[in-house]
């Protein structure tokens, strides 16, 4: 093949890409918001790595924040204080980074809900659904590690809890905990190891999967809602160039702008108030960031169910902290295949469902969301007990009862509403 041939082929390919049509609907922007938050995370994260000191050892603080001067702390905590009080733009970068993580996880979660309720996970997009769920897991894991790096009292308590989760796994628990956290808690190399996972290993995995996710969206084409000219066999929307690229650039700038404004004006994670980590102290009341609160909630209200297998111990944190979250993700991963089994529908679908037209799926999804919502609320049950002026025990029991009943009620009501909406929209 001659050089000119190659060139024309490449040109044709590029021209084809630029002419490709993307459907237009506000809910299709959720995934893009996640993507752009990730870009902001990478940008601010690169800046933060320049100033963060992962240790090892201890230093005596003598920086700008007077209240902590003369106190012994890890280089990680000291350099986070320096970032917050002495590095130009450091606090802005820290806060934008933190806000971007909150928005990143939220956007992925809502995006996943959109895919779920509209049936966009069906063939030929089952694999891409699984890639998306994996991205959600990686995002949560990396969020947790990022929270842990400053090595303040609050985050140290969180790492202690994660350590116990790892330790509780049957058979390999102690080895797993030693592998992930570099030894017996709190190990000398722990922060350094979490650092490399947070800034390199997991982000690279996220970037790779994200690339694959987008490639799949591209090659398997985007779904669209029925109506107008839109059919299974066509795509109606904006051409890549110019309309789609202009719109998505607008979204990128808006996401970056909103995150910068939040970072500038709304304080988040003021680690200097918590003090350095000390294994003999704990802060109360304490909650992790929102995307981890469902696990925290489960931990607080699940009954203590340690049990024995072959005479070996499976301690109680395993159920709430490891088995339960893994079961959730397994259910999410399996959903497209389960639904296919039940409905027998193995066709390809490019037109989306309206949620009301799939009452059973919508009801199950709503029940799942209500369950997660309850667990998030339960993550601060001690504060609520204080506000209600009752014992923590009774609040715990209230949540247990709600957990067993509310999802069923939500499912039934959703199912009814779906049918009512169907009747109303029938001609």
């Amino acid at each position, binding site marked *: 093949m001659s050089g000119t041939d190659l060139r024309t082929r490449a040109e044709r390919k590029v021209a084809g890409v630029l002419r490709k049509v993307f459907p237009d609907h506000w809910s299709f922007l959720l995934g893009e918001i996640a993507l752009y938050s990730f870009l902001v995370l990478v940008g601010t994260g690169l800046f933060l790595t320049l100033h963060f000191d992962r240790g090892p050892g201890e230093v005596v603080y003598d920086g700008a924040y007077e209240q902590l001067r003369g106190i012994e702390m890890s280089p990680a905590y000291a350099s986070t204080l320096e970032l917050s009080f002495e590095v130009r*733009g450091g606090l802005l970068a820290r806060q934008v980074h933190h806000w971007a993580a909150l928005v990143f996880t939220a956007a992925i979660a809502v995006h996943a809900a959109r895919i779920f309720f509209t049936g966009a996970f069906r063939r030929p997009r089952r694999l891409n659904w699984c890639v998306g769920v994996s991205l959600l897991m990686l995002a949560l894991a990396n969020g947790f590690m990022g929270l842990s790096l400053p090595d303040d009292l609050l985050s140290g308590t969180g790492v202690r809890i994660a350590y116990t989760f790892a330790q509780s796994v049957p058979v390999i628990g102690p080895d797993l905990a030693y592998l992930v956290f570099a030894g017996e808690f709190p190990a000398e190399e722990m922060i350094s190891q979490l650092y490399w996972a947070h800034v390199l290993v997991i982000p690279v995995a996220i970037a790779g999967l994200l690339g694959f996710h987008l490639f799949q969206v591209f090659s398997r084409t985007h779904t669209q809602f029925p109506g107008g000219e839109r059919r299974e066999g066509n795509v109606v929307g904006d051409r890549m160039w110019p309309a789609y690229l202009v719109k998505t650039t607008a979204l990128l700038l808006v996401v970056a702008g909103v995150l910068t404004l939040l970072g500038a004006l709304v304080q988040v994670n003021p680690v200097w108030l918590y003090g350095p980590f000390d294994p003999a102290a704990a802060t109360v009341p304490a909650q992790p960031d929102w995307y981890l609160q469902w696990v925290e909630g489960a931990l607080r209200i699940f009954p203590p169910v340690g049990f024995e297998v072959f005479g070996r111990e499976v301690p109680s944190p395993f159920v709430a902290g490891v088995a339960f979250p893994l079961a959730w993700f397994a259910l999410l991963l399996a959903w497209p295949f389960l639904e296919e089994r039940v409905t027998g529908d193995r066709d390809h679908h490019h037109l989306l469902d309206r949620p009301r037209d799939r009452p059973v799926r919508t009801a199950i999804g709503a029940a799942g969301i209500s369950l997660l919502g309850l667990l998030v609320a339960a993550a601060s049950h001690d504060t609520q007990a204080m506000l209600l002026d009752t014992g923590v025990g009774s609040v715990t029991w209230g949540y247990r009862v709600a957990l067993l009943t509310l999802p069923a009620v939500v499912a039934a009501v959703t199912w009814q509403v779906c049918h009512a909406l169907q009747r109303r929209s029938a001609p």
Partner: protein
Amino acid sequence: MKPTDVLPLRPWAVARLAVLLAGGAGALVTGVTLLFTRDDHGPAGAALGIGALALGAAFATVAKHLLGPPDDEEERHAPGSPACQGCDPETRPQTRRRLVVGGSAVAVLGAVGGGALLRGRTDARRELRETSWRRGDAVVTDDGRPVQAGDLAPGSFLTVFPDHAIGAADSQAVLLRVDTRRLGNRPRFEELAPDGHVAYSKLCTHMGCPVGLFQQDPDVLVCPCHQAVFDVLDGARPVQGPADRPLPQLPLVIDDDGTLRAGGGFTGPVGPGWWGRPR
């Protein structure tokens, strides 16, 4: 491409675009200047954020008022659509087989590699089982001061370590002085806790938080993390909350000059449980 892809230039749209571009650029320049001249990050960040938002609005203006509506149409070249022949890996048996083979290869490699990594570690189980407490260690506070019998008034509470491992997370213990008259007939208690001095591991048996709250009447230790409650007068048995195991006790002795010393290691492994924890 359809001829309507670019709309006729409307003067007000162009004017709005110009204002947004100029305003956005101005805000960005202001933001950068503020960042390098002022110590307070708030105004600088706000200006930068507003600048980005204005530029975003400029792009949105172009999309909305200068380009056509989203009504371009093309045939769908996707798996399962008529315009696509044989482009669905999900239904091609060959690809499927390749995926299965590749997937299992990765799984096997992962299992082998993971196993090797896990085995290469030090003896995690032994380290989890042991603490630094040895028979005869002086009981000291976190600043290294040895605790004398009688230093502690009944009802008070201290965090203590062995004298040679101050600050060691797995060896931290709570030392309490309880009123011996309230003990009733608990002989074991008496033998490990001379003169009402009683010490328990400070690591919660639930998730390993430090058990940091001591309350009297009834005498209990409370873990701040998930409110596990341990009965101090009854071997730190969990009486409420998520913990299902007592806090291991540290046997104490008072030597001739009145210093508190450990009579041995904890009565059991400290902290949360694990597979294979000895009982």
